[in-house]
């Protein structure tokens, strides 16, 4: 590794402080003031706007062997979404995803 110990700890420290400030930002500085309605309207969609995008590349990631998108991953992701949406719960959703993933990997 081409960095001095001082440089490595600098990276760690600045990343730590920066990440903390990012996380603290609104929660700390806006505090108990009420955000305007338009802002709340956007924020209501934060989880469904971030989480699918966070995992989409992992679901559609090409299989290292075939070079194509992996149908097993896609099927497992769809099963997770459909069951989670239908049952409105995390646990049935996870079970559906794991069974689909494991089952198809075993079969294919």
């Amino acid at each position, binding site marked *: 590794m081409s960095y001095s110990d001082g440089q490595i700890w600098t*990276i760690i420290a600045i990343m730590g402080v920066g990440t903390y400030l990012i996380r603290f930002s609104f929660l700390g500085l806006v505090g108990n003031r009420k955000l305007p309605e338009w802002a709340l309207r956007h924020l209501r969609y934060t989880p*469904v706007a971030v989480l699918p995008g966070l995992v989409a590349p992992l679901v*559609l990631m090409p299989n290292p062997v075939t070079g194509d998108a992996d149908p097993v991953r896609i099927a497992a992701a769809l099963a997770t979404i459909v069951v989670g949406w239908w049952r409105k719960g995390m646990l049935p959703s996870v079970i559906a995803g794991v069974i689909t993933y494991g089952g198809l990997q075993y079969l294919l």
Partner: protein
Amino acid sequence: MTSTTSKFAFVSGFWAGLPFIAVGFPFAMFFGIIATEAGLSVAQAMGFTIVVIAGASQFTAVQLMTEAVPVWGVIAAALAVNLRMAMYSASLQPHLGTAPLWQRALVAYINFDASYAISIAHYEKEPSLSVSEKAAFFLGSVSLMTPIWFLGTYIGAVAGDRFLNGFNIDFAMPILFLALAAPMLKTLAHLAAAVTSVIAVLALSGMPSGTGLLLAAFIAMAVGAEIERRRGR
């Protein structure tokens, strides 16, 4: 935070966080392994895990360090990966904004993907929770995950790659996060935001790490909010 309902909320959060241990522990161990293989000391690997406590950005930093990217480049890319957490912070504000400062400061430290996703899903399902119950739930959700995250990194850093053979966790994380997001698809606006997020992330995949997701999330939030505005809630 001493009332019975807060204790109950803390315990509920603890149980809700439990499935994520199965992902978090190997993920943390993997970081410990990668970091020491890349040439970091055990103390430095632990420094990342305890001071930064954000897995994806830690992997990004170590990856760039193996490519000998300049210090500021490493920091900028890794922080870009974490920018989405500003949105988590803003999204939690209406729920936890009136909590005491020390609780908000603590929540900020442990506001990562899993704890945010678990907690916001719970808040949406149980809108009648008080602020102190919401804060207790959040802290409960990470009460085991955080020490496990530290311990996993340590074991990975010390033991190297001896343990990892046979673990296939790469697809556990997508399943867990989709399982949290799917029940939140309550309206057409939510569904449209989720679909937009996926399409935009793929379209923007050429952008530097983290920034594509951030822009995609902004677009998706705007789509959701606009549909809500036109149709009414």
